[in-house]
């Protein structure tokens, strides 16, 4: 019984290593990969490896499912673009949809959920109105959550399309307004790169920093292995394409106030996925690096999250990051009163 997610990480780094797995080890690996939303990526990495027939069928199914997710994600982006045809500002795709729209290696086998887009903060009302006109509706009707979202979060309250039943998240920056680092949203929009279809994606350094912000600030490192796998791909591809990339990454991290997060992410990517990283940007190992790695690997062969105390510590800490203490207390109190989990 696999005790942590190390075999998944090993399989992603060294595809040939899976040829030694027994039947029950394959079952464990599949459960871990599904739990970490990495089975599509794993299936693509293992395409040329010999494996038992049923395992091949399972991985083929994962590829098929992720192909569909990709198709639906691109269509959703297309629908949003048409709904915003009269909006003159940039519509910047984010996360998985950006990777597949820009044909990046990080998009291969990627599981994609909602459509995430970023627009200028002053245009939120205009964008909101256009989406509502085109058939999207609010998901959360509660006025407290609604107010919280608008005042403090980096996105509009969630919208869902009434017929297609797909969600769109409209962001105006990459981290909540109440969190520590305050990224420069204007700079991200200015540097955004235009795709052939007229939608935008972030410039390379911003794209990496967004993924890093997401890794540490959104939740208790939940989905961290997948997030770090994205970062691994982005770093490899951008570094290979442009020798100025590391310098750009350095300067953008300073613009957005994410220098420490960048350093830690580089060290973690190197430790977990062997990503080649710039040594001076990565800095020296911190004692907490190994705690982060333990947290990232905390998944057993049944797909269960393990190491509960580490997880709890991360959860409280991540909520702390997002909201100042007084606000945190009020937010948790209201949520608790209404029966939601904190």
């Amino acid at each position: 019984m696999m005790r942590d997610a190390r075999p998944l990480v090993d399989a992603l780094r060294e595809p040939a290593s899976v040829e030694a797995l027994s039947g029950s080890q394959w079952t464990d690996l599949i459960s871990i990969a599904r739990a970490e939303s990495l089975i599509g990526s794993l299936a693509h990495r293992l395409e040329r490896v010999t494996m038992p027939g049923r395992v091949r069928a399972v991985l083929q199914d994962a590829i098929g499912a992720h192909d569909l997710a990709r198709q639906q994600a691109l269509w959703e982006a297309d629908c949003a673009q048409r709904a915003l045809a009269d909006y003159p500002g940039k519509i910047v795709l984010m996360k998985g949809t950006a990777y597949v729209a820009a044909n990046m290696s990080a998009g291969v086998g990627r599981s994609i959920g909602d459509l995430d887009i970023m627009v200028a903060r002053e245009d939120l009302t205009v964008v909101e109105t256009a989406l509502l006109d085109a058939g999207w509706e609010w998901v959360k009707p509660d006025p407290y959550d609604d107010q919280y979202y608008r005042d403090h979060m980096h996105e509009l309250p969630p919208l869902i399309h009434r017929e297609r039943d797909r969600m769109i998240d409209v962001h105006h920056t990459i981290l909540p307004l109440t969190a520590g680092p305050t990224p420069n949203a204007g700079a991200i929009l200015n540097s955004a790169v235009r795709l052939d279809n007229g939608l935008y994606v972030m410039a390379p350094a911003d794209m990496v920093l967004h993924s890093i912000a997401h890794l540490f600030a959104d939740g208790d490192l939940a989905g961290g292995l997948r997030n770090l796998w994205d970062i691994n791909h982005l770093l490899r591809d951008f570094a290979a394409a442009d020798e100025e990339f590391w310098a750009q990454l350095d300067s953008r991290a300073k613009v957005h106030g994410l220098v420490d997060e960048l350093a830690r992410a580089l060290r973690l990517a190197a430790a977990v996925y062997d990503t080649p990283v710039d040594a001076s940007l990565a800095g020296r190992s911190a004692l907490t690096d190994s705690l982060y790695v333990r947290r990232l690997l905390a998944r057993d062969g049944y797909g269960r999250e393990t190491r509960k105390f580490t997880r709890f510590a991360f959860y409280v800490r991540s909520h702390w990051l997002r909201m100042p203490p007084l606000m945190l207390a009020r937010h948790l109190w209201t949520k608790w009163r209404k029966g939601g989990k904190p």
Partner: protein
Amino acid sequence: MTQKYRAAPKDDLIWHDLDSMMLLYHRPSGITHMLADPVPAIIEVMANAPLTAAEIAARLTALFDVETGVDAEDIVIARLDELRTLGLVSRVSG
């Protein structure tokens, strides 16, 4: 009105005839649409070139019996608006 409309490329569409309705599988979206007359015909007459609503209406009345007093062009415009929401038809600019 001189606004022209263009239908989705033929290769994006798979049709299937059921007794009272037409099914349309739209490949880019993966969505299956169920369409009643005259919508399949509208898409079909647009297959080769962008057309105005009036041109589409003219072709439809040539193919079908249309009741007198019915403004075919109005009906076509209404259907085209629905098809635009679904992403099956787009307006041609210029």
